């Protein structure tokens, strides 16, 4: 008799989701879905608010990547008041660099959180390890020195965010046309040199390098598993600079295929000309795709793996990350890397890349400049803006419209996890087929493999559905007659 498996909730991700897997009479997988079962409605309740509140209110959608939402909103407001990229106006150097500093600091701490707290436990203990071991407390027991360093790394990232935005979480810095504060020399020196209880910048880079070594070691010992686990195809998408390399703050959106050929490159203000979204009754999360290629072929992957696939090279000013990226690229010999667990490799590279970018910025005297805002007048008002940044989880887009009085009338948020919806579902299906299909007995470790696949994307379902609550996930397995066969819920 066929079965239906349920994992509910999926754990160690941000938000609330569940997985259902449909088996046939031979226990082969016939269907597997990641359901996102929460809804929040930020796009609706921002309407009617003054436009300048949008980056402040909408960043509350997330407790992890709030800086990305804040900056996305700020870029949209730059457009709206008439001093944004939509009018070809470039931001002043100082505010742009200050925004970037906050952004990279958030990427550092967000990636460190995902990598060490959510992902490394399986890397060290294995997918089959008992649940009570494969978590951060298990890490504390097994390697307290490593966890101490992780806490220090996260703290440094949070302190850097606080320096820029005033608070460790949900701070305020970017306002239409610029920022409201620069970085003092004392603040800069504190981050560069550290103090009692705060790492120095060089130590941050050293620890970031160690994170990469953890992946190399894990890969060396588990090469077959890491390379074959959920090798799923998808186009790769990232913001890129004029050289075709990732720019986390601004650029064109570039989409590349398996051979790294450019499929499409667009000004993100034109995103509606290129993208459409499909919906399914079984999930609150939409399925974006390229109109020109259709839903299946036109779905994209975003986030660390996509960015390192799109990027040709990092700059010479980030030599350690550049070298790490070259090793990554060499591994697939010029082809795009579709191996889901290599997302964690990419994430570790980006931790190092962020750290080096931050160091360069901290040594830039523009951070102390006083000219922080592009002035604008009523005549510049456009009433519409689009902002895009590369958030830790991938390409994030905010689009607002406001009337002449400054009242927001429209809001559209397309977040990274939403872009990854199709490829995450492909991953779930791939892992289900490989780990569950054909087995008479379903073990906890097999079910956990599904979660490992999802976790590689570090999905933020709260952002993606603009939804409320913590992030448990449910995996269900149903038989051929639709009867619940197994369920896992936390």
């Amino acid at each position, binding site marked *: 008799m066929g079965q239906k498996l349920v994992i509910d909730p999926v754990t160690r991700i941000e938000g609330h989701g569940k997985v259902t897997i449909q088996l046939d009479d031979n226990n082969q997988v016939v269907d597997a879905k990641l359901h996102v079962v929460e809804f929040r409605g930020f796009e609706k309740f921002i309407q*009617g*608010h*003054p436009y*300048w*509140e949008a980056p*402040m*209110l909408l960043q*509350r959608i997330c407790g992890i990547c709030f800086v990305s939402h804040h900056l996305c909103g700020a870029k949209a407001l730059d457009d709206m*008041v008439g001093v944004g990229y939509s009018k070809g106006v470039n931001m002043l150097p100082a505010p742009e660099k200050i925004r970037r500093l906050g952004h990279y600091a958030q990427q550092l701490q967000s990636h460190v959180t995902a990598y060490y707290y959510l992902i490394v436990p399986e890397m060290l203990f294995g997918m089959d390890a008992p649940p009570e071991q494969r978590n951060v407390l298990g890490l504390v027991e097994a390697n307290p020195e490593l966890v101490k360093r992780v806490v220090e790394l996260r703290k440094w990232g949070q302190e850097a965010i606080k320096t820029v*935005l*005033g*608070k460790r979480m*949900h*701070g*305020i*810095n970017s*306002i239409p046309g610029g920022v*409201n*504060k620069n970085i003092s020399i004392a603040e800069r020196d504190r981050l560069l040199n550290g103090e009692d209880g705060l790492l120095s910048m060089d130590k941050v880079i050293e620890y970031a390098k160690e994170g990469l070594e953890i992946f190399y070691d894990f890969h060396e010992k588990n090469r077959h598993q890491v390379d074959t686990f959920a090798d799923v195809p998808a186009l790769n998408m990232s913001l890129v600079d004029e050289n075709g390399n990732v720019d986390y703050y601004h650029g064109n959106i570039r989409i590349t295929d398996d051979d790294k050929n450019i499929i499409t490159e667009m000004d993100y203000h034109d995103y509606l000309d290129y993208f459409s979204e499909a919906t399914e009754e079984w999930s609150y999360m939409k399925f974006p795709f390229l109109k020109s290629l259709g839903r299946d072929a036109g779905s994209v992957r975003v986030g660390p793996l996509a960015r390192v696939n799109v990027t040709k090279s990092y700059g010479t000013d980030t030599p350690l990350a550049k070298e790490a990226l070259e090793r990554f690229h060499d591994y697939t010999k010029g082809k795009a890397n579709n191996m889901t667990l290599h997302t964690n490799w990419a994430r570790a590279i980006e931790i190092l890349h962020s750290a080096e970018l931050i160091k360069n910025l901290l040594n830039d005297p523009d951070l102390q400049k006083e000219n922080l805002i592009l002035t604008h007048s009523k005549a510049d008002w456009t009433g519409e803006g689009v902002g895009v940044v590369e958030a830790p989880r991938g390409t994030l887009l905010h689009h607002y419209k406001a009337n002449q*009085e*400054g*009242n927001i009338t429209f809001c559209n948020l397309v977040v990274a996890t939403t872009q990854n919806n199709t490829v995450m579902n492909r991953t779930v299906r791939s892992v289900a087929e490989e780990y569950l299909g054909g087995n008479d007995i379903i073990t906890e470790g097999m079910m956990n493999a599904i979660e490992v696949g999802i976790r590689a994307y570090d999905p933020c379902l709260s952002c993606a559905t603009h939804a409320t609550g913590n992030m448990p996930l449910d995996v269900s397995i149903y038989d051929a007659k639709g009867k619940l066969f197994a369920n896992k819920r936390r």
Partner: protein
Amino acid sequence: MKTEITLDGKKIQAQIGKPLIDVASDHGVYIPSLCYMRGKPCLGTCRVCSVRVNGHVMASCTVPVYEGMEVEVDAPDLVDMRKALVEFLFVEGNHNCPSCEKSGRCELQAVGYETGMMVSRFPYRFPVRTRDHASKYIWLERDRCIFCQRCVEFIRDEETGQKIFSIDKRSTHSSIEIDVKLADKMTPKQVKRAADICPVGCIIDKDLGFNKPIGERKYEIKSIKERILKGKTNE
């Protein structure tokens, strides 16, 4: 002329006829208020400055000093009553500090901190109030209005002396209104003044949000209590 009164058990000399709230402040006793502005006529609308005078609870901004006064400010029941009054103001409107640009400059928020309010003991009313963005320079965010009437009394048309703001209807249906024609004649200085004296984020200067960084906002630099006691002003 001065007289002797008792303030929390301590005998002090005070000017007869002077508002009790000012006398307390002059003697280092902070009494929170959200409508009273030193040097301006008393409004008596918020009641947050309630104290006990000769056994009767009354708003200290409304009471002039007289001979034989025995005033209690820090009795536990009065401290809790003032806190409850602040809680009332929070539940009566829709106050969302995290996204409000007045955060850090907001008297209601500052007084909430001073009275030790962590959460309201009363259920939230979630009233449905509309915003008014029709005037050129002012955004009226009615969700945040606490009906202190400072704007009604102290912001007037410079030519005619007419009121620019008014309260319409009564009780829970009350609504702060703005005369758009007069508001559009306001000078930038007057607009700033209106936004500044609003104790919450109800009167907002259009197009100027979040310009002060966190850590440098009014009540982050100096608390409202310090301002009242040392600076002798809540402006």
